[in-house]
C-alpha cells in the first residue's frame, strides 16, 4: 500500500454506467463531510465544477469500456492514479451492457437508433482490468456503501480492506434468513455469488440474482443441477446468469452451458 500525503487527492471517473456506484459516495450522508475533511476532492464531475489536475492518490472508476475513446481515457487515468479502485459490476465485469458481447452490436444499434451510423461503440463491453492494472475491485450492482467506506478508510490508513470473497449464503445465515432456495424453491444464486450486499434479496423472500458476481471459488454445476430439479428451465437459468455480471467468467460459463444444453 503506497504512503499518502497529508491531503490525499480523490478522483472519481465514469465510463459506461448508470451513475449509481458514484452516487453511493454521495449517499454516505453521515460520513460525507467527515470524509471531505480527510481527502481533497480533486475531480468528481457529478458533484463538483472544480477540477484539479492529477496525479491523484485514490481514484474510483465506475463503468465499463465500450468506446475507442474510453480505451485511451482509461490509460490516461491509470497514469495519473497512485491507487486505482474499480467500483461496481460495470467496472469489474462489464455490467449489463456486456450483454452485447453475446450479440451483434450493430443489430443492437439498429434497434435503438434510426441512424446507427452516428453511433460509435465497440463490439464488447469490458471491465477496467482488461485495459489497465487495477489495485482493488469493489463488486456489486450497486456497490455496498459499507464496503466503499471500508475501502477508502483502509487506503487512507494504509491497511488492507476487509472485503470477504465468500458467498451470499454466509451473510444470509448470519442475517438469520430462512433459506429461500430450500424453503421456497426460489432460483437463488446465493451459493455462487460473492458476499457484500448483506443478503438483501433472501431477506425480502426472493432469490439472489447475482449482482455481486461470482464468489472466490464458485461451484456452479451442483447449483444449476438442483435448480433444474426444482423446476427452473434452461432459459431461466441462462438469463439469470446472463444479467448484471454476464461476462464474469464463472457466470459466462454457466450461461453458455445452459445455452448449449438448450439447443
Amino acid at each position, binding site marked *: 500500500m503506497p504512503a499518502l500525503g497529508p491531503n490525499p487527492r480523490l478522483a472519481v471517473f465514469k465510463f459506461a454506467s448508470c*451513475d*449509481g456506484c458514484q452516487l453511493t459516495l454521495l449517499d454516505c*450522508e453521515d460520513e460525507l463531510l467527515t470524509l471531505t475533511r480527510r481527502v481533497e476532492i480533486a475531480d468528481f464531475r457529478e458533484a*463538483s465544477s472544480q477540477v484539479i489536475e492529477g496525479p491523484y492518490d485514490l481514484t474510483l472508476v465506475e463503468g465499463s469500456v465500450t468506446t475507442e475513446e474510453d480505451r485511451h481515457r482509461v490509460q490516461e487515468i491509470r497514469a495519473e492514479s497512485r491507487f486505482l479502485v474499480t467500483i461496481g459490476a460495470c467496472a469489474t465485469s462489464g455490467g*449489463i451492457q456486456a450483454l452485447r458481447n453475446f450479440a451483434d452490436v450493430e443489430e443492437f444499434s439498429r434497434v435503438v437508433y434510426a*441512424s446507427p451510423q452516428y453511433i460509435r461503440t465497440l463490439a464488447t463491453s469490458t471491465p477496467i482490468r482488461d485495459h489497465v492494472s487495477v489495485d482493488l475491485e469493489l463488486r456489486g*450492482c*450497486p456497490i455496498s456503501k459499507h464496503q466503499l467506506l471500508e475501502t477508502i478508510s483502509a487506503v487512507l490508513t494504509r491497511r488492507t480492506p476487509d472485503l470477504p470473497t465468500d458467498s451470499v449464503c454466509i451473510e444470509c445465515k448470519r442475517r438469520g434468513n430462512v433459506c429461500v432456495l430450500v424453503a421456497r424453491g426460489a432460483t437463488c444464486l446465493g451459493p455462487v455469488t460473492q458476499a457484500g450486499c448483506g443478503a438483501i434479496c433472501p431477506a*425480502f423472500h426472493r432469490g439472489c440474482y447475482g449482482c455481486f458476481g461470482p464468489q472466490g471459488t464458485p461451484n456452479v454445476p451442483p447449483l444449476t443441477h438442483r435448480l433444474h430439479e426444482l423446476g427452473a428451465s434452461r432459459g*431461466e437459468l441462462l438469463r439469470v446468469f446472463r444479467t448484471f455480471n454476464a461476462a464474469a467468467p464463472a457466470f459466462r460459463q454457466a450461461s453458455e452451458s445452459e445455452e448449449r444444453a438448450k439447443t
Partner: protein
Amino acid sequence: MTERTVAVNYVARVEGEGALRVRIEQQRVREVELRIFEPPRFFEAFLRGRAYTEAPDITARICGICPVAYQMSAAHALERIAGIEVSGTVRALRRLLYAGEWIESHALHIYLLHLPDFLGFPDAVHLAERHPEIVKQGLELKRAGNQVMETLGGRAIHPINVRIGGFYRCPTSEEMRTLRSPLERALAQAEATARFVATLTFPQVQEDYQFVALRHPEEYPMNQGRVVSSSGLDLPVERFEEAFQEQQVPWSNALQSRSKEGGTYLVGPLARFALNRDRLTPRAAELAKELKVPSPVLNPFQAILVRALEVVVACEEALRIVRDYREPSEPFVPAPTPFPGGVGQAATEAPRGLLYHRYEVGQDGLIREAKIVPPTAQNQARIEEDVRHLVERSVEAEDAQLQDACERAIRNHDPCISCATHFLRLDLQRN
C-alpha cells in the same frame, strides 16, 4: 468575420456525460447542440428475449439516481399486458417507494448539485466549509428518502423488492413505524428548505414552455394519470406515441422527443406543478401560497423552489401512507397463467419528469419489443432552447462567464444523461 464557439466540454453536477456546443456568428446564435456523449448501452435491444418479469430489475440499471421510476413504469406497463391491477395497500406502498425516490433525488439536486450555483460555490463541499448547517440539512433530508427506499426496497440504489403485481415482501408494521420520526423531521426540513430557497436571488427570465405531465383525478401525479399539456392535450397514456415522437440528431447519443407538430416541450417539476397545482398536498399548497409562488412558474431558475415544494408533497404523502399502514395479506397480485401476451404502455412521474415505457410481450412471457422514453430525452431539445435564449441575451459576455451561465441553464432542469442515452461538453463557436 467574428465567429465564436463557446464550449462546455463537460457539464459538471449533472448525472452522466454531456457537452454543449454553441456557435455564434455576427453576434447571432447559429447553433446550440446539447451533445450527449455518454456511451450507448442499448437497453431496448437487450430487453428483447428477456422474461417480462425481469424488466423492472433490468430497466432500473438505466439510472442509479431514479431506479424506482424505471421499475414503476415497467411494472405498470407489463401489468396492463397481464391484465392485473394493483390496488389498496400495495398501491399505496408503491407511492411510498416513489415518494422516497423523489425526496432523495430532489434533495440531492437542490443541495448538492443546484444550490452551489446560487451561492457561488463549485460544490457542496466548499459550501459546507462556509455554511455547514445548510449542507447538513440537505444530507439529512436526502437520508430520509433513502431510508424509505431501504425499508421498502431493500436498498436505496437499485431496490430489489419491486415485482410485477407488487412486492416480494411487504414491510412489517414495526419496520414501517421506524420511518415515522425520520419522515416527520424530513417534512419540517422540507418546509424549511422551501422557505430558504425562496429567498435566493433568481435571474429574471421567463420562458414560454409547453408543459407535459401526468394528471390524476385526486393525487399529485406519481404512478398514474392521463397525459396532459399546457396547450390542452389530454390523452390516455396508451396514446402517448400519437402525440410525441423521438428523433435522432447526429450530435447526440440520446434520442430527442418532440410533439407531433414538431414543437419542443418540457417535463419535470415545473410541468407537474403547472398542471397539478390544485393537487398539492395541504402543507405544500399552503406553503406555495405563503411564498407567493407564481402559477405557472416560467422562470427555469425557480425550478429549485418547485422541487422543494415537491419534497414537501412527497414527505406528506409518505407520512400519510406510513401512518395508515396495515400489513396486507398478500404482497403482490399474481399474473395469470398462461400469460396472455400483448402490448402495454405506462407512464409514471420520475423526479425529472414523465417516463414512458411500452412493451410487446409474447404468450411465452418473453419481451418482443421495448420502447423507453426518458424525461431527459424529452427535455433535451427544450434545454437547447433555454440555452439559445440565454446566449442571445448575454452575447456580449466573456466566454468564461457565458460557459458558466450555460451550464447553470442546463442544470436548472436536472438532466439525467445516463437516462437519456439510450448527455454534456460546452463548445461555443463565435463568428
